[in-house]
């Protein structure tokens, strides 16, 4: 086996030094009746060529997003990742190091985390950010738990514009700890009155912007309403690129801002690994979950970075920790940080503008297709259309014509009465020809398909 350096002679010598006759003597603590005496029911090892071949065969059974006109978002977005990003994150020193527990030999990772935290804080308009969470949905759940700790209340209000799977994650956490979770009905037109749902028991209100349907929302009135009742505003975003074009959560008064960072530096990867961004107000720092890199000096007085404030964390505080998180998304955070450094303020704003332009063009074209209407007034790179046909069937028809046309809302929210809605995204990766192809195919599907 090419990954195992020991050979038979090595093993014999080592067993002799250890003082046992057979390797099984070292496994003597396994109860005899439970020792496995038959080979594992798995094929024998395979060569690099064979493994590559079988995985390539599996990969070929998928339709790669880049091989078709592609308009799906809903929490994961297809953006260009510069070649530099993927090269740098594969450097041995980043890829094959552990969590930086020995800072003298981990300054590379630690400085990156400090820069990442600084970038995330700037992007969200918040005061502090942590060194990453698993993804946007788990960051959202952790934000809710943090709000419970800060306010000592246990009732969360979830906006009807929150990604349904994010709401599922929060609801699961809430159910397990007997917290009260108020899920507002899905709200495609962004007309819900969240202020009315906040009372003196409310710990937090969780609002996504741009919301699941692509609407841009003004969070400032919700922040004011929450603060008036002693509750926190948790602002969620699933499309980090949007923050290059729209007002930040911090500017609108959010107390905690969480989101998905996949859009910047990370591939779609069929849903993971992604990188959760988590930022908050300084005054709530001690209640934050996750790792934090901080600045200090070494014995020679040189600026250095180290994991800090670990008295919040599970390995010190155990059952009193702010979270059980340990491993997070270090390498995805590195990819985010490198891509953000390559973009810079100027590049991020241009990228955001290109996305918005593509979406505006697509919305205009789709709105002109007979029977199709665009629901949104203000949007960034994603919006919702209503068509005369069942959305899921329509998306299947489009897929047969080689177009990934978006997300039928019914896939994530069956039974919500929104079967005629499709959430559509356009990024800098979609071309005018793609958008034209989509509109033509959609028109054909609508004229040939059964109407309601």
């Amino acid at each position: 086996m090419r990954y195992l350096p020991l050979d038979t002679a090595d093993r014999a010598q080592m067993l002799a030094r250890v003082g046992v006759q057979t390797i099984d003597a070292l496994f003597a603590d396994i109860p005899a009746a439970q020792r496995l005496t038959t080979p594992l029911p798995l094929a024998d090892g395979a060569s690099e060529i064979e493994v590559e071949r079988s995985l390539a065969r599996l990969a070929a059974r998928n339709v790669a997003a880049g091989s078709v006109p592609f308009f799906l978002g809903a929490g994961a977005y297809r953006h260009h990742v510069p070649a530099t990003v993927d090269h740098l994150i594969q450097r041995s020193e980043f890829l094959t190091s552990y969590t930086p527990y020995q800072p003298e030999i981990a300054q590379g990772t630690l400085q990156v985390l400090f820069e990442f935290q600084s970038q995330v804080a700037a992007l969200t308009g918040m005061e502090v950010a942590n060194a990453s969470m698993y993804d946007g949905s788990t960051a959202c759940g952790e934000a809710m738990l943090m709000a419970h700790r800060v306010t000592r209340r246990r009732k969360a209000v979830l906006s009807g514009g929150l990604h349904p799977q994010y709401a599922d994650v929060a609801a699961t956490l809430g159910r397990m700890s007997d917290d009260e979770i108020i899920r507002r009905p899905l709200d495609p037109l962004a007309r819900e009155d969240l202020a009315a749902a906040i009372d003196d028991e409310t710990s937090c209100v969780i609002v996504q912007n741009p919301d699941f349907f692509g609407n841009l929302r003004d969070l400032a009135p919700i922040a004011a309403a929450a603060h008036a009742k002693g509750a926190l505003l948790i602002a969620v975003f699933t499309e980090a690129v949007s923050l290059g074009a729209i007002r930040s959560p911090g500017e609108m008064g959010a107390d905690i801002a969480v989101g998905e960072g996949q859009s910047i530096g990370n591939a779609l990867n069929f849903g993971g690994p992604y990188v959760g961004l988590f930022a908050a107000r300084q005054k709530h720092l001690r209640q934050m979950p996750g790792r934090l890199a901080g600045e200090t000096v070494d014995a020679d007085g040189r600026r250095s970075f180290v994991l800090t404030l670990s008295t919040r964390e599970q390995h010190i505080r155990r059952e009193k920790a702010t979270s059980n998180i340990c491993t997070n998304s270090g390498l995805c955070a590195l990819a985010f940080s490198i891509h953000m450094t390559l973009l810079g303020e100027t590049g991020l704003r241009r990228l955001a503008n290109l996305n918005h332009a593509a979406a505006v063009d697509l919305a205009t074209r789709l709105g002109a297709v007979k029977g199709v209407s665009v629901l949104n007034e203000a949007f960034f790179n994603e919006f919702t259309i209503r068509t005369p046909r069942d959305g899921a069937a329509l998306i299947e028809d489009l897929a047969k014509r080689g177009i990934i046309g978006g997300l039928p809302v019914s896939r994530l929210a069956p039974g919500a009465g929104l079967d005629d809605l499709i959430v559509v995204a356009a990024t800098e990766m979609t071309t005018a020809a793609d958008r034209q192809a989509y509109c033509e195919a959609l028109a054909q599907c609508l004229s040939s398909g059964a109407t309601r």
Partner: protein
Amino acid sequence: MNSHGRPTRPADAEPTRHATFTGNRGLDMEEALIFETGRLDATGVDLEAPAPFSSRLGAHARREAIGLPGLTEPEAVRHYARLSRNNYSIDVGLYPLGSCTMKHNPRLNEKVARLPGFADLHPLQPVSTAQGALALIEALAEALLALTGMSAVAMSPKAGAHGELCGMMAIKAALAARGEDKTRSVVLVPDSAHGTNPATAALIGMSVRAVPADADGVVSADSVRAALAPDVGAIMLTNPNTCGLFERNIVAIAEAVHVAGAYFYCDGANFNAVMGKTRPGDLGVDAMHINLHKTFSTPHGGGGPGAGPVVFSERLARYAPAPRIVRSGDALALAEHAEDSEAFGRMSAFHGQMGMFVRAYAYILSHGGDGLKQASEDAVLAANYIRVSLADLMSAPFGDRPCMHEALFDDRWLKDSGLTTLDFAKAMIDEGYHPMTVYFPLVVHGAMLIEPTESESKASLDLFIMALRDLAMKAVSGERERFLAAPIHAPRRRLDETRAARQPVLRWTSPAPV
């Protein structure tokens, strides 16, 4: 001198460590923050401006500056390449962090994970366009079930602690189904447990009752029986445990737990020791997470991403969270809604760490059943080889008992030296080694937990042993300075961690104008 007057031999000068103008020392380079070198108007990405169009951002458009510095591409490459050089990594040396399983990360796995059919695939594409991805997840799930002898697996948890949470939520759901989730609110956790175990129990509103280990480092069935009561819902036990020992009473413990009406959660962080040697399903385990970033070699990336699939016994299988892969005729489909079954809910958006699944599956195919068993045997052999090779110099808390995949020492042997475990660990850095896990597990004073994994050659192990023996002899013979000053050959000397915590500086801020 050669004929052009160029010196070809080093001069016989006195070596002094003089300061340099740049602060660099040869290949050891200082690197500023991007916030100090970057500019708001610099960018390393060429993006065209779009044709003029009417914005639909309305009043939501950002008006304020963000404050994000940019670098051109050559500057960015240099920044990150230089930073990377200040990191230790498994690619450059033995990385004996106990309970972290820092094994070789095959690059084949990186290559296949980047195939467009996996990497450029959206989680919400029509499932008809992602059949290969679902087939891979199912194949990996089947391999994990074969290795563990369990009934079902939840693939969505994103790391070990997330897997613990998933397993404990399933247990809580099972208790709720019996109407006992309110009355059975206690989780038994041994003192040697990783901190995530009690933190996880607390997250779902359960309280922790400690179970002592015996003097030989393992938990006895009697201790568990003594702690079991009608208010106990579960036990969380790590096996092999964090002292590197197989919990040899595990079958009796599982029986006692089950008789008492509770469930058995096993922390599978150390599964690398027992592949092909025993199966958790045969030991009476009800739920166990598997760290793909440990046992199955997905790179740790300086702190993740990981993946923590959870295997379940028949008793808990029905409560496994959404999503699940289901068969629909000849095709595979996703059951994405917990409400449609007894699933306890959802752990995260989408379907889990697909990028890690591809890598882990490639690792399993490469090894095969025979290779995985050999990997476990080699890992255990290497740990024991280190254990016996250091036993005469360093003190082991549990005597001569064979260990599993990691060898545990304490600090009794340093008692008269005036040195601590930390001093010894930092001196290892000067020898070119990443230190072992130190001060964990908490049950052993000044713990040093060494996990070499199966990836080291005998020559590598021998050099490591000789280096540690040399250091140990120096420590006990009174060479204190070398240890107290260590490390001196690393990019940094010891850090002021107190200052970092007392005056936290967690982000860059523009220095005040002078």
